[in-house]
């Protein structure tokens, strides 16, 4: 036990341990508007749960000090996943135990120690998966298993006493609607952005003059704060809807989904155009020369050579856009477009942190899921024949 073999694991372990020692695992408050009293892990967990927690922690710290080539990545990943689920279960049990029938407004929220432990456990899993050089499909499977287990825990009702889930229970009906709206907003922005952006990127790769113009405009768009764009679009779109009744009939108006989707498309264009241009320009000129020399028609050169070779770079752009749009769509609730952002702004207005989390946590999880799916697609698209 001299030099730690896995410094990442050691660091994450230390951060998690420090959080547990110094901050509350859950917070108990008489109602949802006041900030509560922090309760450390050892005061809320039962002896059995605490013992298992300590055992899993011990496994991880021992693994961190093993020689790099002998670290049991699989065992580390499993231990971290169990720790992640155990922390969730402990929090749920604590909240249930703290329920007071006389005070229905009393709330048990998740504390800093909980969030830091969950984050550290997630990063340890990711690190273990990377060190094992797990294939893209296996990686997806790991994510599905872990999130499936979390889902089961939620469905079982053991977490229902936690404030965020009580908030969810209150807003159950609207949550499904807003979640669906959020996904629709993202799709309504992503599809046109790709349909417009990819051909624009190809055109920019072909003509230097066009390239400069397009990037000048899109770079400026990217620098405008999103809130400003949403606001700035109210006047022109209202005017447009007033002039052209057909558009108004389609739902175009100064506030709501139309300006939100328009703004999201504008932001999404730059990464799509930039990556498409880079992907097409990055195809080795010798390969294109050879393709022409073999007797490919220009159309065949494009579809059989340039498109497949540019695809991983283009998909990387789509991945950035997807994650970015999922986040930005939350802001669109400001102008009445709905989506998960609605809970965030409602929560901000009421100073109800749990309501904010009800909007924020699913948004983050949605972005992470989209990122993972896109990475898997990119790895599969670029998996054959290329050096990296």
């Amino acid at each position, binding site marked *: 036990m001299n030099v730690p073999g896995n410094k990442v694991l050691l660091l994450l372990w230390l951060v998690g341990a420090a959080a547990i020692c110094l901050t509350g695992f859950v917070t108990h408050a008489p109602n949802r508007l006041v900030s509560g009293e922090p309760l450390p892990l050892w005061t809320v967990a039962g002896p059995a749960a605490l013992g298992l927690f300590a055992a899993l922690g011990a496994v991880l710290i021992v693994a961190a000090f093993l020689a790099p080539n002998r670290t049991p990545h699989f065992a580390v990943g499993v231990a971290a996943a169990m720790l992640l689920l155990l922390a969730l279960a402990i929090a749920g049990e604590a909240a249930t135990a703290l329920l007071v029938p006389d005070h229905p407004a009393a709330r048990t929220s998740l504390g800093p120690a909980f969030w830091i432990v969950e984050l550290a456990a997630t990063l340890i899993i990711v690190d273990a998966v990377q060190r094992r050089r797990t294939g893209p499909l296996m990686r997806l499977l790991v994510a599905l298993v872990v999130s499936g287990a979390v889902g089961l825990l939620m469905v079982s009702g053991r977490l229902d006493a936690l404030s965020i889930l009580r908030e969810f229970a209150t807003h159950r009906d609207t949550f499904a609607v807003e979640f669906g709206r959020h996904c629709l907003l993202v799709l309504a922005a992503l599809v046109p952005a790709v349909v417009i952006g990819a051909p624009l990127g190809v055109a920019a790769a072909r003509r230097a003059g066009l390239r400069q113009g397009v990037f000048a405009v899109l770079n400026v768009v990217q620098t405008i704060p999103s809130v400003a764009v949403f606001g700035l679009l109210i006047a022109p779109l209202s005017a447009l809807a007033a002039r052209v009744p057909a558009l108004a009939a389609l739902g175009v108006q100064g506030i709501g989904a139309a300006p939100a989707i328009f703004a999201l498309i504008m932001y999404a264009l730059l990464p799509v155009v930039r990556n498409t241009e880079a992907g097409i320009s990055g195809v080795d000129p*010798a*390969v294109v020369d*050879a*393709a022409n*020399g073999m*007797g490919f028609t220009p159309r065949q050169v494009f579809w059989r*050579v340039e498109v497949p070779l540019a695809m991983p770079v283009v998909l990387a752009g789509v991945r950035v856009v997807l994650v970015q749009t999922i986040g930005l769509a939350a802001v669109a609730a400001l102008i009445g477009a709905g989506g998960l952002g609605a809970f965030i702004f409602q929560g901000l207005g009421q100073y109800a942190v749990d309501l904010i989390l009800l909007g924020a946590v699913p948004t983050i999880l949605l972005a992470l899921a989209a990122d993972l799916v896109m990475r898997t697609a990119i790895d599969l698209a670029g998996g054959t*024949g*290329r050096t990296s």
Partner: protein
Amino acid sequence: MIELSNVVKTYAGRRIVDGVSLTVKRGEVCALIGSSGSGKSTTLKMINRLVEMTSGTIRVGGEDIERLPPEMLRRRIGYVIQSVGLFPHWTVEENIATVPRLLNWPQPRIAERVRELLGLLRLDAREYAGKYPHQLSGGQQQRVGVARALAADPDILLMDEPFGALDPITRGEMHAEFAHIHETTKKTILFVTHDMDEALELADELAVMEHGRIVQFGSPRQILDRPATEFVHDLIGMSQIGLKRLAVQRVAERMRPGEPAPGDAIDASATLKDALSRMIERHTDRLAVRDEAGRVAGAIRLADLVA
């Protein structure tokens, strides 16, 4: 097989190729040689219309190339480039099958042809057919590039500095491969190079280009014996011109039939340079010469080499 007459290419008012006329006969190997910027690559690319000529006519197999759609023309002409340009997302087999697929050959015929070509290029089909280009060495990539060019059995092969990017040892191997392929397939080959030794070794005819014009056209021996201009002279490199001349002539041309000589015999098809080397090695001024059948047919003397 390939006829260029008075071909001109102008870029932005400058005549890159300035009235080139050139004929390559069926089954011949012709080298277009010159320094960079002499217009040799442009001349080559005008034949498969990767570059469109400004004026003049080019005929391939007697047919005016302007009469055909460029894609159709190119599928009938093999094309090999210095940087190989294999399709990185396709296997060796798929790369070689490129033109047969464009021509809609039936699958079994394509598979058969790929195996045949891998054999011709001395690449084991079982080991290499499924590999991707990045898994091959530079020399292997160029072999696949040549196999791909030969796939649809074109009459003509155009090669743009095909061995320029290879290390000297691999280049030597590919020269031998080139001779072997030409021997086997009898293709009409036009290749571009800036390496005079390569041109002298591989080509039946050389066209030396300078400033967009052909300044000398002839066999290796004609070029070596009577360089037409100072430029051709410089290109040959005068330091070892005597040895280079010996390297392009065969023992058969100078041998004395019927004369006896001691020791192991040298092949009549060997070059005079080989003969000189053998004499120095053996400390002798006479070598026995054997004919194709392996019988001693005569002798060659040191004095014959300098005659």
